[in-house]
């Protein structure tokens, strides 16, 4: 039944809190172990999309032995359909900075770096001002922690954590092999916590209001809230903070235009869900949710019946072909061949069965590509081709 369900709107992230100094000093009064325990019991998972438990990341870095450690805020928001981090950094930057200091307190890092994508250069001046004020306050309370901004220069792959570190070190943004993970060997080879902008803000909420408040929201395995970037064929595009675990059906009742054909969850590297599967799909991390669970960095793109799914896939593949760093063969050649392949099928130069070959190619890429970019091309490719095969052919 349409409109019988109301999505639970939450307001934590953009809530204006004028007391960050107080929150910061209460954080600094707690021991690293206490703070780690709070994060662990909140079950906060990374909000960039991958969903690694934040408490574990901080704990591993805290335990690593080194003379230097770093905290990095990943603001290289490049996933198609995502625009929440920019909003956070322009509306509540002090929460991000406070959380970075908290992370420094926990791990022993003395330096924080915000990696800001080149496309958001216009944010730099304002953000610098906030950092200066923040810095002034840290000096006053004798806190040894410095934050600086590092500008990216237009490369989607630099959102991948190890590629980002290569870029920070002045190199091509090519992902590294893992392990070692950044918690052991990150920026300049030192233990590094790298968190998404939104993840950091959630830690602020947890440290201010307590882990329970956060844990009580959401569902099992997917606790708390999440910012969703809603775009495409919707009467109300924008940024919304919602509880995790909602069904896609409810989401579409709220945001659809009455003609929703499919929703892309998680951007070009995520999954396309066709209408018939809305009911079974829940937004959250993998767990024991019945049906399909869809992790997302928050990108929700709606398509109505006027859209050609071939064009959508064509657009994604062109994106991946351009943004593949070219380092590993499965991704470099795979993205090119997928794009050529679907065009050839559409033209009739290849038989429809060629799509199955391409599906096998994406499986190979999923198994053999070096990083998440090449591995996740299979997500959108297979979910579009399997659900809208006829649109690829005719």
């Amino acid at each position, binding site marked *: 039944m349409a409109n019988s369900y109301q999505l639970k709107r939450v307001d934590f992230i953009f809530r204006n809190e004028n007391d960050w100094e107080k929150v910061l000093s209460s954080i600094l009064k707690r021991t690293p172990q206490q703070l780690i325990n709070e994060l662990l019991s909140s079950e906060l998972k990374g909000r960039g999309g991958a969903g690694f438990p934040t408490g574990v990341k901080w704990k591993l870095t805290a335990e690593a032995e080194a003379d230097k450690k770093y905290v990095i805020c990943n603001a290289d928001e490049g996933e198609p359909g995502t625009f929440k981090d920019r909003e956070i950094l322009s509306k509540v930057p002090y929460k991000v900075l406070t959380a970075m200091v908290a992370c420094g307190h926990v791990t022993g890092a003395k330096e924080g770096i915000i990696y800001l994508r080149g496309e958001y250069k216009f944010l730099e001046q304002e953000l610098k001002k906030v950092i200066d004020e923040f810095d002034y306050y840290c000096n006053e309370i004798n806190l040894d922690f410095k934050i600086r901004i590092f500008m990216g220069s237009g490369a989607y792959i630099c959102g991948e954590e190890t590629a980002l570190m290569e870029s920070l070190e002045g190199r091509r943004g090519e992902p590294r092999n893992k392990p070692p993970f950044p918690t052991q060997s990150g920026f300049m080879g030192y233990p590094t916590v790298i968190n998404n902008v939104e993840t950091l803000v959630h830690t602020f909420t947890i440290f201010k209001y307590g882990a329970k408040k956060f844990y009580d929201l959401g569902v099992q395995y997917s606790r708390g809230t999440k910012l969703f970037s809603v775009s495409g064929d919707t009467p109300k*595009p924008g940024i919304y903070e919602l509880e995790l675990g909602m069904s896609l059906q409810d989401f579409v009742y709220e945001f659809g235009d009455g003609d929703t054909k499919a929703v892309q969850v998680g951007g070009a590297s995520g999954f396309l869900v066709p209408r018939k599967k809305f009911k079974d799909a829940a937004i959250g991390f993998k767990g024991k949710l019945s049906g399909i669970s869809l992790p997302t960095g928050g990108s929700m793109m709606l398509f109505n019946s006027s859209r050609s799914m071939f064009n959508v896939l064509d657009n994604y593949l062109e994106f991946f072909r351009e943004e593949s760093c070219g380092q590993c063969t499965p991704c470099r050649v795979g993205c090119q061949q997928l794009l050529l392949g679907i065009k050839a099928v559409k033209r009739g130069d290849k038989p429809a069965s060629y799509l199955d070959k391409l599906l096998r190619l994406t499986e190979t890429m999923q198994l053999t590509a070096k990083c998440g970019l090449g591995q996740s091309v299979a997500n959108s490719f297979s979910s579009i081709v399997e659900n809208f095969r006829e649109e690829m052919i005719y």
Partner: protein
Amino acid sequence: MDPIQSLIKDLAEKHGRERENLLPIMQGVIEREKFLSEYSMVEIAREMDIPASEVYGTATFYSFLETKPIGKYTIRLCKTITCAMKGKSQILFAIQDMLKIKLGETTPDKRFSLLETNCLGWCHKAPAMLINNEVYTELTPEKVREILSGYMKQNGQF
């Protein structure tokens, strides 16, 4: 010392000569020169004491570090899915028509270059474009003509 040499020297003094400062130095050159010429790249390499091929290899990885001559105003029109759905092509035609250049070209007076780019992060206000670092959203052909006229007037020509 020529202007580019001294610019690079200043940037190296400001940021430091370690490898991790290569991006900020290149970005500094771009800010003034708009692109990294072969000469600039060789100079950066000399100043930082690294092979010029390393500078070139790094520069060519990043789409905002141009290594070919480019106009004073670089228009980067977003072509990713939501902008494509919301009428990016009409915006592209309007710009091409007004500036009399095609995608990837620069106006003969070297003032405007027209490029497409991947997701700018304004999908809720599509279509969007950047002119240098300035963002313009919810574009229509009329709106984009108005914006470009503004830039043209700034230069007192056309």
